[in-house]
């Protein structure tokens, strides 16, 4: 037994199973627990998973040794050569994700003990949150697209349950339902992508398949020179990307994420910022060895990513709800990640995912701390507790929260030396570099770069608008709320402090080449992308990544860095100076009612996309169903066809019954007539 649990192939299973166990414990026996024991079980499960993951990371994966766990055949259709196994695969990428999920997850679980302590549903809450960790870990650790899909839909379920956690309010359960259904639309695409991949390559496993040894990795590598239907692979990747658009909130399926803010704030931090929404990014990075063959699909990803980054960024400029600002910024930052993926720079996308996980979780938890302190007086669920226009000057009341939120905002805005600077800058530089490599004037690289810079302007603006409105200037809400606002308990501020350190430090794992040749992050991930890159280099593709940097490219990196730094610092300062002054709100309101009213309202109402979808899809389906039910099912099929034919039989027999008069004479007549006709037939027809 001892040896069994020292075996990494077994130990790896404990990582997802511990949270599952925690979830089951709280789910089944939660009624008998108080907040302390319930929280201890939930936190213990995730922290335990983190410790195991960390030990496996240190002893194996960081040494370049991947782990394939034990497993069993999940589904098999022998003669069709179809099998999916239930098995985990930890390589550099999935291990990194595991550490983010369990690490940030641990902090958020601990924070939740303070945040949800007064809620009567805490056991249910922790059960869902643990279940989420389980599903998310299955998503990243599973060794096939089907196990990924298990986690993929599993996290969707947990998200649904947690968004609608306070289900008494209609708005919340509506938001949960919307999230699930929009995600299902994405999953529809994802399934089609899986079908295309299976029928083309004959397997859905990355590494291990009883019928296809070596799984997709080997098959794709073997076929990479020729033998591949590139058209089909492009379509498969587009289908998979539809799934990513759902899960990672990209145009046109992003609409669920802002509504998802109805859930408890730690949920927004963990699920709707740090982990679940990055699943689409993970999926593309995971399958990079297939995506390198799908250039058209990649271009679509780059454009959708850039468009989403800019589009969501503009909406974020004018939102009043503190969580909505952060939600749109998440959509926008995810757009940056897809931008990087679409341009072929997978490691940079993962890097931005990594830094974003810290500073965005930090910002959400900080926002939660603000909301928590105001809800004391305003009451739970009071929208005023999230309204930036009714805040101000909270710096004095919430010094720790204010400090960490500024750190988070610096990261988000891309202020030099904060983590977001390194990762976002690397993405913009990728676009810029690609633009120059592609040549020929305006091209994909330059377009994406310009959109990215414009999105970065928005990011810097709303980040510091938020800081200014929330912590500086004068208090604009109800006096009692301000008077009673106080800093959150230690269990909440401690995770904030740790995240703040991570939000600063994470960026230094991959320094710009222009500064220093120090990139442990990209070196660590390199094996994951090696096969795909080899193919690109072989074909001299412009999308290939280069380890060496020429003097020209270093110069371009400097240009890009200076532009983005100036933008970030300048816009941040501009926004902060407006909104930290007491007149900030008044100025914005003047703008809204003045000449700029129309575009302002357009942004405030999120370009009316929700209303548009309502008119285009939701209503028509409902009306069509209702009408079809009455017209086709009830009237046409049932009344006319079914009952009609029954009626016809009834009427027919009523008529036929008349013949049976019971008078012998009538029968004799009929008999005679019949005989006469028969006779006539015999005589004349022959």
């Amino acid at each position, binding site marked *: 037994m001892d040896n069994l649990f020292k075996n990494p192939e077994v130990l790896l299973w404990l990582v997802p199973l511990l949270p599952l166990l925690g979830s089951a414990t709280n789910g089944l026996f939660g009624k008998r627990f108080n907040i302390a024991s319930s929280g201890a079980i939930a936190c213990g499960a995730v922290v335990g998973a983190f410790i195991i993951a960390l030990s496996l990371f240190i002893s194996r994966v960081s040494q370049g040794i991947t782990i394939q766990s034990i497993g069993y055949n999940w*589904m098999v259709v022998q*003669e069709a050569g179809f099998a999916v196994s*239930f098995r985990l695969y930890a390589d550099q990428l999935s291990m990194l994700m595991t550490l983010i999920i369990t690490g940030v997850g641990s902090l958020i679980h601990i924070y939740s003990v303070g945040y949800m302590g007064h809620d009567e549903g805490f056991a249910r809450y922790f059960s869902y949150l643990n279940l989420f960790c389980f599903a998310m870990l299955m998503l990243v650790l599973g060794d096939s697209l089907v196990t990924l899909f*298990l986690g993929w839909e599993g996290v969707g379920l947990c998200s649904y349950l947690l968004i609608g956690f306070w*289900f*008494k309010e*209609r708005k919340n359960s509506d938001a949960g339902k919307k999230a699930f*259904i929009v995600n299902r639309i994405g999953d*529809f695409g994802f399934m089609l992508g899986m079908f295309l991949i299976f029928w083309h390559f004959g397997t859905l496993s990355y590494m291990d398949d009883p019928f296809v040894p070596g799984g997709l990795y080997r098959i794709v590598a073997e076929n990479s020179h020729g033998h591949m239907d590139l058209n089909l692979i492009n379509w498969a990747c587009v289908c998979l990307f539809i799934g990513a658009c759902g899960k990672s909130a990209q145009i046109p399926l992003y609409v669920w994420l802002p509504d998802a803010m109805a859930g408890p704030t730690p949920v927004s931090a963990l699920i709707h910022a740090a982990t679940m929404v990055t699943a689409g990014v993970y999926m593309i990075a995971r399958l990079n060895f297939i995506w390198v063959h799908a250039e058209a699909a990649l271009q679509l990803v780059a454009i959708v990513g850039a468009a989403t980054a800019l589009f969501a960024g503009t909406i974020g400029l004018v939102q009043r709800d503190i969580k909505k600002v952060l939600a749109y910024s998440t959509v926008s930052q995810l757009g940056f990640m897809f931008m990087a993926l679409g341009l072929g720079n997978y490691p940079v996308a993962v890097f931005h995912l990594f830094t974003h996980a810290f500073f965005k979780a930090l910002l959400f938890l900080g926002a939660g701390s603000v909301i928590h302190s105001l809800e004391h007086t305003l009451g739970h669920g009071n929208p005023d507790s999230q309204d930036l226009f009714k805040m101000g000057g909270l710096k004095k009341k919430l010094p720790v929260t204010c400090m960490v939120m500024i750190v988070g905002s610096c990261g988000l805005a891309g202020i030099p030396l904060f983590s977001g600077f390194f990762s976002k800058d690397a993405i913009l530089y990728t676009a810029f570099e690609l633009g120059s490599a592609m040549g020929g004037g305006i091209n994909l690289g330059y377009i994406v770069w310009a959109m990215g810079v414009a999105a970065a302007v928005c990011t810097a603006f709303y980040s510091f608008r938020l800081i200014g409105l929330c912590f500086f200037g004068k208090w604009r809400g109800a006096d009692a709320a301000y008077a009673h606002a106080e800093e959150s308990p230690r269990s909440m501020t401690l995770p904030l402090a740790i995240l703040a350190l991570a939000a600063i430090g994470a960026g230094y794992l991959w320094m710009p080449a222009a500064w220093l040749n120090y990139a442990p992050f990209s070196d660590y991930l390199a094996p994951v992308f090696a096969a795909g890159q080899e193919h690109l280099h072989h074909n001299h593709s412009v999308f290939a990544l280069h380890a060496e940097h020429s003097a020209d490219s270093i110069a371009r990196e400097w240009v890009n860095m200076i532009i983005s730094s100036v933008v970030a610092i300048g816009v941040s300062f501009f926004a902060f100076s407006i909104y930290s002054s007491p007149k900030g709100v008044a100025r914005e309101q003047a703008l809204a009612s003045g000449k700029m009213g129309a575009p302002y309202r357009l942004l405030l109402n999120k370009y009316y996309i929700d209303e548009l979808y309502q008119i285009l899809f939701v209503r028509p389906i409902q009306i069509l169903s209702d009408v079809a039910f009455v017209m086709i*099912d009830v009237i046409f099929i049932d009344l006319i066809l079914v009952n009609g034919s029954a009626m016809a039989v009834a009427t027919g027999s009523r008529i036929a019954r008349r013949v049976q008069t019971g008078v012998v004479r009538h029968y004799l007549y009929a008999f005679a007539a019949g005989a006469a006709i028969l006779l006539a037939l015999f005589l004349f027809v022959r």
Partner: protein
Amino acid sequence: MEFLSAAIDVTNLRYHLSVVTFLPLVGALFLTFIHRKRERELKATAFFFSLITFVASLPILFEFQSGGGAGFSLVEEVAWIPAFNIKYIMGVDGISVFLVLLTTFLSPIVMLSSTSNVHHKVKEYFIAMLVLQTGLIGSFCALDLFLFYVFFELMLIPMYLLIGVWGSDEIERREAALKFFVYTLVGSLLMFLAVLYVAHEAGTFDIRLLPEACRNLSSTAQYVCFGAFMLSFAIKTPVFPFHTWLPQAHTEAPTGGSVVLAGVMLKLGTYGMLRFAIPFFPEPAVALSGAISVLAVIGIIYGSMMALAQDDLKKMIAYSSVAHMGFIVLGLFSFNLIAVQGALLQNINHGLSTGLLFLLVGVIYERRHTRIFAEFGGIAKVMPKFAVLFMIATLSSIGLPGTNGFVGEFLILLGTFGGMPNGDWTWTTGSTLAVFAASGVVLGAVYMLWGYQRVFFGEITVKENKNLRDVTPLEMSFALPVVVLIFFIGLNPTPLLTRTEPAVKATIENARASAAQRMEAVAHK
């Protein structure tokens, strides 16, 4: 389990399937001797007999030869009406074995649930239930076409009575029962004519010989007979547009009736397609597979939309059955091994998930005597355990990975999408159909989650809902076994899949081969 099969070995029970089939009938006979006032004894006896039937059916799984390929196991053969070469033949293979077990598994559950929600004419109710059970098991085991028909018709009367006598609404239940009866009878009478014709031409009623014997039929005869068989099974399944009896029957039927109807009886339709219509008449089956698949896909989308339009919880679930059965028919007529395997598994899955949904609707109906959405809302607050059970059934119904529903749907769609692969894969009509069918996965989530929201979430608006009792231990005891199976099959369907595969493979490959042969022969002429 070991000792059970040992016991069977020792007693050398040669008529195992007959014992399982007729045990419920023996139980029904027993019931006739119990006084109608002694309701507890009546209920206990009925439950006891369905339970020992289940126990007796378990060794089938072990005796059933999975490695032995496509043949039948546990075969019993006795002459019955020698003049017409009609025999009493019973046996199971991969296609039927899990349907038999599903029936015997659900029966005690239905009996348990009925103990609390049947209050009048208790004696007759349980007799009808037990007779129904014999009819169902017999239909799945019969290897003689005439015998099959006898069992097939045997179910009709008890089900008619269950709806007509124990139904919920005084007037509507009669209409629903009548519609059910007439609908099914019209289909099965046509089939009966075809049965007689086929048996006459082939000279045998033996289902094991008929696929081969039917090759001699002319093309026209094949098409006509296929049409007659298919009509009967399409009504039973039901395939769009023959479905309108189903929602009505379900809304009126008592809980136990609905569970048996949706859980097992509908499967006779899809079972019949794979057991009779496809192997007997491969040429029309292959030639018309496109048209039938289109009807199946219409059923999926149309059924989902109908479910969306309902204001009655039970009716919504009834329409969801139309959609789910559409998936199964689509899988069967794709002639792709993965899809047919998925379809067969989905037969079982639908029985479990929809069976559980109807059981749970019964739980709330018993408390509130209504199933209208507007009467509910906020139930999760007062009945948390019930809410969890209903959520699990919902997730299984919408095919969330990890539950059984996903495996079935996924295999059906994957296989149908692939079509009949031959060399390099190319896009086929099957792929297009699978894309449309996959949209049913989205619609399924829409109506089920909306339905769930209307029942469980929000504030409690109706006064009577404030003091509802949560699930009782009895109710828990019949829901839990289904929940366990939902997850078991969801995480480990392989034991089922490997047992069904040889029979499925033989059936569809024979059908495809002989259809190709015949079509080639026609082309040569």
